[in-house]
Structures are given as C-alpha cells and as structure tokens.
C-alpha cells in the first residue's frame, strides 16, 4: 500500500507515495485542534472579562456638572446620572433606543435617579451639530426629550451617511413634536441655540471625556455603551453608597428645569 503510485494532478507529481500524507495530516489536525482551543479560550475570556475597563475614578478637580444640559426626573432623586452624548454616534443611538427606555421606566420614573443629557458633538460626525442645535430648538418649546428620542430613532435618516442637508430632515422629524413649527424652523436656520450647544461641548472637553457615550454615575465615569443590566449594577452600587452615607447624594442643581415625567400607567 505504501508503494502505490498515483496519477499526476492536484499538485502531486506522478509517483508520489499516497500514504506518506498521513503523518502530515495528523500533524495538521493537531495544529487545527491547538488553534481551535486557543481561539475558543480567547473568545471565552473576551466575552466573560469584566467590561468596566473604561471606568475611571472620579476626579474631583474637574468641573462639576451643574445647571447644564437637559434634565429629566425628580428633584428629590438621590442620584443624578449625566450622559454626555453625540446624536450621530452609533453607540449613543444604541443606548438611547435599547437601554434608555428601561432606564427611564425603571429608574427615573421610580425616583431612583435623575437623568441629565449634555451634548458632546464629536468632530468626526459632520451632522451632529445640526442635530444638537435642532434638539435645543425643540427644547425652547419644551419638547427636548421627544426630539431627543426622535433624532436617535431616525439617526440613519439624517446622519452623514444619509444626507448632506440634515436640517431638512431634522425639521421634518421635529414637525409633529413642536407647537410652533415656524419658530422651530427659524431657530434651526438661524442656529439660534448654537451657543448653548457650544457651552455643552466645552464642558465635555473640560472634563477630558474620551468619547461618547460617557456617563457620570455618582463617583464613576464610564465611557462606553452600557446594557441596562450593566447600568443598573453601577447605579445600585452608587445608591448603596448614598444609603450608607446620605451626604454623598447628588445635589440637584436645577430642579426647576427638571422635566415633568409621566409615571408608568399614566
């Protein structure tokens, strides 16, 4: 059998002994198995390692977040969570559409936390300033959060990939939300709210945030997408700290600005 000759073709020269391949095959299968084991171990490690690697300790020398952004929730909530977000950032959109509904229903509406959103329009996104300005224009008519949700939900319709004229799309998105459409459109055309967005941007820069979304939850700063479970875990840790030491509760800097919320079932 070991002397059987084979025909030419398949890269073999005539006369090659076929059975000589067997040790090669065995060695090859061994390599395959080793690579498979390493690969599986690597994937298992990556998917089970703690995901809070981008959490940094709170730096008290950085400017505090006060009276800026848009606030939702009870003034008496013990903990305030601040999100620095970019309307065109895909991960922010993912957070807004997947995680934030649960955060609002289970944490904000139950007065466990107060929620603050501050614009951090990143340079890489060409249309994000238009979105922040449009959201601030909706805020003039008390409809920031509705616009915030609509902008994120329709992110693929007005982002850089989709259009070079985002204002046209943003006006259409805001049309059913605002009472005074003409005022809203004019605000966008005049970029009337740009100073407000700039102030928010400066605040994010001053805090040296690495990107979006960035969350400040008590004494933790996290810069990555969070699932509801991840988010809740951090909030629970912070609430436990506040319970142990009520003096660490987040002071409410601008309760008058806090948007009234509809409780579940209302």
């Amino acid at each position: 059998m070991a002397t059987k000759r084979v025909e030419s073709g398949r890269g073999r020269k005539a006369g090659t002994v076929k059975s000589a391949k067997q040790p090669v095959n065995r060695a090859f299968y061994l390599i395959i198995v080793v690579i498979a084991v390493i690969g599986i171990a690597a994937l298992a490690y990556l998917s089970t390692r703690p995901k809070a690697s981008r959490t940094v300790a709170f730096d008290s020398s950085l400017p505090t977040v006060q009276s800026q952004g848009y606030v939702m929730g009870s003034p008496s909530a013990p903990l305030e969570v601040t999100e620095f977000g970019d309307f065109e950032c895909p991960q922010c959109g993912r957070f807004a559409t997947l995680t934030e509904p649960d955060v609002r229903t289970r944490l904000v509406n139950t007065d466990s936390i107060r929620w603050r959103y501050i614009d951090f329009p990143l340079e890489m996104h060409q249309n994000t300033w238009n979105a922040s300005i449009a959201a601030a224009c909706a805020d003039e008519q008390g409809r920031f959060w509705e616009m915030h949700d609509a902008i994120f939900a329709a992110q693929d319709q007005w982002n850089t990939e989709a259009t070079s004229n985002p204002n046209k799309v943003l006006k259409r998105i805001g049309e059913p939300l605002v009472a005074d459409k003409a005022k809203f459109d004019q605000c966008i055309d005049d970029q009337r709210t740009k100073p407000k967005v700039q102030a928010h941007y400066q605040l994010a820069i001053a805090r040296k945030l690495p990107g979006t979304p960035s969350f400040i939850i008590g004494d933790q700063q996290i810069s990555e997408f969070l699932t509801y479970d991840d988010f809740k875990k951090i909030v629970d840790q912070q609430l436990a700290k506040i319970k142990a030491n009520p003096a660490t509760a987040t002071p409410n800097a601008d309760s008058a600005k806090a948007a009234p919320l509809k409780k579940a079932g209302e």
Partner: protein
Amino acid sequence: MTKRMWMALISLLGLFLGAYLTLYKFGFIGTLACGVSSCEQVQTSRWSVFMGLPVATWGLGFYALMLALAIVGMQERYSDSSPLSLAMLVLTACGAVFTAWLNYLEAFVIHAWCEWCLFSAGMVLVLLVLAILDFRDTRTTIEA
C-alpha cells in the same frame, strides 16, 4: 501543506474572527480591539446587518462552511472530487463579491474602515485564489 489545508487553516481563523465580531454585535464583548480604524462605527452602522442577521454572523457561517468543505476535501476519498472543488470555488466567489460590496460601503458610504473587516477581506481573497487553483488542479486530474 496542500491548498486545502491552507484553506482549512484560513477558514478556521476566519471562523474565530466571525465569532468575535458576532459576540460583539450581540453585546457579549464590551468594546472591540481596534487600533487604527473605526471598527465600532462600521460595526454599529445600519449596513452591519444583512437580511436580519449581523454581517459578522454571515461571515461566521461562511467560514464554518468553508472549513467543513476543506476538511472533507482533505480526506482521501474526496481528494480529487470535482463537485467539492466547484462548491468551494462558488462559495469563495460569493464571499468575495459580498466582501467587495462591504468594502465599497466602508469607503464610499460609511466613510470609515474596520481593520477586522479588511483582515477578513484579505482572507476571503486568499481563499478565492486557493479555490481557483484547487479547481484547476482537480480538472487537470480528471483530464489526466
């Protein structure tokens, strides 16, 4: 090493790459290891899902199928199998066309590059070349 061995090896690497990106897409991996490009921008864009499944998952399926075919092709019984060779050629050709479309989207629509996607594109290209050579060898064998 034979061409089919190389195909199996490359497919195995691709399988793990597909699994890595799929796990990221389904939220099991926090952030992607991405040195110089914009992996997250690409992986979270609306183009990262094709027919209801993440593109990475399609890639995972492609590499798994290629691995299976290459390993079957390494068996003595199928070493000169023309249908098997043709199946690998058709599969890699489809993979190359799909990859080219994804690279076009990265370059001209998303305006961002994902280094893992480029790495995968390179592997698909090598697989296609190997599949063409393998198909040619099989035909030579039949003619001989």
